[in-house]
């Protein structure tokens, strides 16, 4: 792939490395399950490989696209995302897996609209916040519209239900508002309104409440609600400092739930040890810092907000996933960007990295 002069090479390098590492880890963590379920140990590896190639293509495209075209697409994208989120809820179009309707199939391709929505919302907010400039401090003009959009999206996501995506989306949107200069008291106000809702959303849904309880005391029921997190700890702990070696994980042998998706980092911890964990965490941190640097130095507010939103989106999910699998925050379904198995997630992540790289191309000369 041609790298244009001025592109932030470290972001590109980190993204490529993490993606390749992800393909390897997906294979390691899924091969035995793949044999059991599909009779082909390469089942998930092949797919993740294809997703990576598609993702790299999307990244290359996004790197070259004129940012103005992207900016003009902000509203249409927002509309499209809304339609997709609605469509997912319609029986027949949306595909239900494990009680949640998160997938949609169009022209033979199955994907998760929620992943699109994240990047769509970031694009929309970057465009809108940059346009409104000083008016963001105005409640009716600079705050309320975003809350309405957010409320619609969150409502649609929770209807799936997909609390993990909803929380990510909410946090990223609020952080963008905060950075753009919204008055803190509005945010505080909305927080107070949202809190009872959040509490209701969690405590009123049985499996979510159980997850919270399991987080607070996993040993109370280690074979049931506490099972996931204890198995994850066993994976990390038995990996030790240097790991059991690539492919040597035993926890992936059906002890860890979804070892190739949400709990793939536990397999990393077991096979590659503390060293592997630190290296991957550091790569994410570096990626975030480079992304934020791009945002700070971007030539205009739109690209700055866009870079910030994208960086936050990836960084948030990475941090949240790591914190979940290590039992630092309650369990919720969140993929580890780049690494976890999943086409939509990988392709949208790489596409957004493409946008980030696009922004980095336009940094003032001395920062290139």
């Amino acid at each position, binding site marked *: 792939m041609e790298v244009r002069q001025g592109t932030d090479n470290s972001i590109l390098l980190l993204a490529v490395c993490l993606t390749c590492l992800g393909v390897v880890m997906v294979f390691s963590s899924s091969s035995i399950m793949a044999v059991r379920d599909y009779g082909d140990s390469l089942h998930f590896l092949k797919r993740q490989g294809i997703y990576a190639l598609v993702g790299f293509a999307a990244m290359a495209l996004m790197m070259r696209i004129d940012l103005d075209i992207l900016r003009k697409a902000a509203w249409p994208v927002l509309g499209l995302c809304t339609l997709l989120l609605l469509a997912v809820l319609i029986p027949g179009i949306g595909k239900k897996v494990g009680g949640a309707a998160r997938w949609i199939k169009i022209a033979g391709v199955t994907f998760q609209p929620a992943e699109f929505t994240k990047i769509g919302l970031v694009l929309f907010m970057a465009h809108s916040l940059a346009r409104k400039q000083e008016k963001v401090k105005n409640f009716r003009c600079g705050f309320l519209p975003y809350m309405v959009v957010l409320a619609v999206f969150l409502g649609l996501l929770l209807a799936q239900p997909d609390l993990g995506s909803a929380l990510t989306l909410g946090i990223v949107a609020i952080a963008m508002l905060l*950075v753009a200069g919204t008055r803190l008291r509005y945010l505080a106000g909305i927080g107070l309104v949202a809190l009872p809702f959040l509490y209701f959303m969690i405590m009123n849904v049985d499996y979510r409440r159980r997850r919270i309880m399991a987080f607070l005391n996993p040993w109370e029921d280690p074979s049931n609600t506490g099972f996931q997190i204890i198995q994850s700890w*066993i994976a990390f702990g038995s990996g030790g400092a240097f790991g059991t070696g690539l492919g040597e994980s035993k926890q992936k042998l059906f002890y860890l739930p979804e070892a190739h998706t949400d709990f793939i980092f536990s397999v990393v*911890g077991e096979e590659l040890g503390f060293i592997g964990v630190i290296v991957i965490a550091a790569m994410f941190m570096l990626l975030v810092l480079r992304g934020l640097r791009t945002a700070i130095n971007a030539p205009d507010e739109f690209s*700055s907000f866009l870079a910030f939103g994208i960086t936050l989106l990836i960084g948030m999910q990475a*941090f949240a996933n*790591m*914190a979940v699998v*290590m039992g*630092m925050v309650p369990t919720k379904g969140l993929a580890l960007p780049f690494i976890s198995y999943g086409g939509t997630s990988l392709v949208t992540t790489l596409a957004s990295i493409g946008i980030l790289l696009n922004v980095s191309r336009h940094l003032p000369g001395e920062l290139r």
Partner: protein
Amino acid sequence: MKELGKGVRIRIRLIGALFTLGFVLVAMRAFDLQVMQEKQWDERAERQHQKVIPLTPQRGTIFDSNGEELAVSVDVDSIYVEPRKLEDRADATQKLAKALDLTPRAISAKLKGNSNFVWLKRQVAPAQSEQIKAMKLNGVGAIKEPRRFYPNSNLAAHLLGFTGLDPKGLEGLELKYDKMILGRGGYLVMERDALGRGIGAGTPQVQGATRGHDLYLTLDKNLQYIAERELADGLREADAKAGTVVMLEPSTGKVLAMASFPEYNPNALFRYKPSQWRNRAVCDSFEPGSTFKVFLMAAALNEAVVSTTQKIDCENGSYRVGGKEIHDHKKYQKLTPAEIIKYSSNIGSAKIGKMLERKNFHRYIEEFGFGQQTGIDLPGEAIGLVRPPERWFEVDLAAISFGQGISVTPIQLVAATAAIANGGYLMEPYIVERVVDSQGQVTMQNQPRMVRKVIAQDVAHVVSRMMEMTTEEGGTATNGRVPGFRVAGKTGTAQKVDPVTGGYSSDKRVASFVGFLPVEEPRLVMLVAIDEPKKGVYGGLLAAPVFSRIAAQAMQYLKVAPNQDVPAGEALPSLEQIFAEATAPERAKAQEVTTSEASSGPQMPDFMGFSYRQVLELMEERQLNISFRGRGRVIEQSPGPGVAIPYGAPVWVRMAPPS
């Protein structure tokens, strides 16, 4: 397009700082989990990943004083199944049932359930294991497990004891030294996934097995053999149901031989009654009868209540004590103490007992070790019965003086006699010389231990001399003589207490002889006791000849040079003669386990655990050629045990050093 405001930049940097903090927290958490708590989680992981199947521990070898093997562990195959790996269950069940001689129903019952691993049959014959291996069934395998084998079959069986099918020692030395002989069994470790299935295609790994310690005995296999053979002959001649021989080294208390009859073959334990397992030498007690007179005499001389020249009136064969009449078997008038022993006078003994007095006599009885365990390192030692002197009536004192109304164990009697033979020292009898671990390090070394000095040396010599007179012309034990040696001894004949009437039985007796030789410097002290002989009753006639035959061969074997003239026609047997006979009955016994099924034509014996020499002897007897592969003990054979050997078929055994 507008440049970014200063506040925006600051807020973005703030977010960057928050992220950095977040990742630092993640790193700290990872450090805590993976480095600080590694061990704890690792153990948890192991617990959940591994299924552990305990294995049979390897027992150490038991050697005699010359390093000859008396009990060995031989590795044999145990067949297991990992049911989940079986491809065609029905087919496998049929095949396994045929090969292992089990019913298909029994096998499918084992394969049922949710287990990953089941023992199908443990410790199978080599031929069966061979068949199983040839089938190459997925999920069926063999693991070597040790099986206890007694290469000499019945030899010293009571002493060695035996083990259960699981490897715990149940009797004899196997029980007494179980903790040392028994190794750690180790485990078969199988990895499993969350669904409980075994991981990996390889055979399960054996971990943590250690070999048990070896025992080296004071026992001499050859002396033991001689003792057993002669006891068996003696019992046959006397038409007796049971008997025992105990042979010690008087100066140390080392057990050189210890035989009991009826005997049993520990390799085929289930064919014998538990009463046959009994080590009569330490577990049974009996009335010693006249043999007890020597301890009375030793006590009386040591207390100087009687002098060697004193003449004691033996009342012409009949004497009333405490309202009861006691008799001698011949009418004696005045006898010296030496003559009382020589002729075994009950009346003379009763009179000396009276002179000694109850308390003194009782004290010496205890000092000679009666009424208490000798401390020999064998399980189940009886103590006999010695009543307290306060409860002795006058007639009891008289009866005990000639060995009635008291009971002793064979080992007590021999140990006490050894104290007379060795100049007055009661030695604790022992049988294990040393214990050696698998690295060859000695972990326990037994030393001769003196319990106490019982009588003065000169008294011991005087009593020895008196006992020697019994084997001289006119004595009661002339049959106990050994050509070329001075022999000291004492016969005993005691009526057995009838369990029904509580009184003495008129026809059930124990005939015994206890003695030692050479008198000048005794090399062995031995008791021969014959229980309930039907032909004759007297120790001098039944037990003394057995003593003589064993002692003569033992002196030859121990290379003790005769220092007396050997009377014409009484030549000592040569070593060749002693052991030429040795093999025939031994072979017969060794065969018992193996080829019991009779059939026409030569049959392949079960050679498992046999030595080169043993195999060769058996095959020579059958006039068959056999080829040997490897060295050590037989671990495999073809054809299998009990199988008729086809004419011209290859016959071989594979051998390996005992593990």
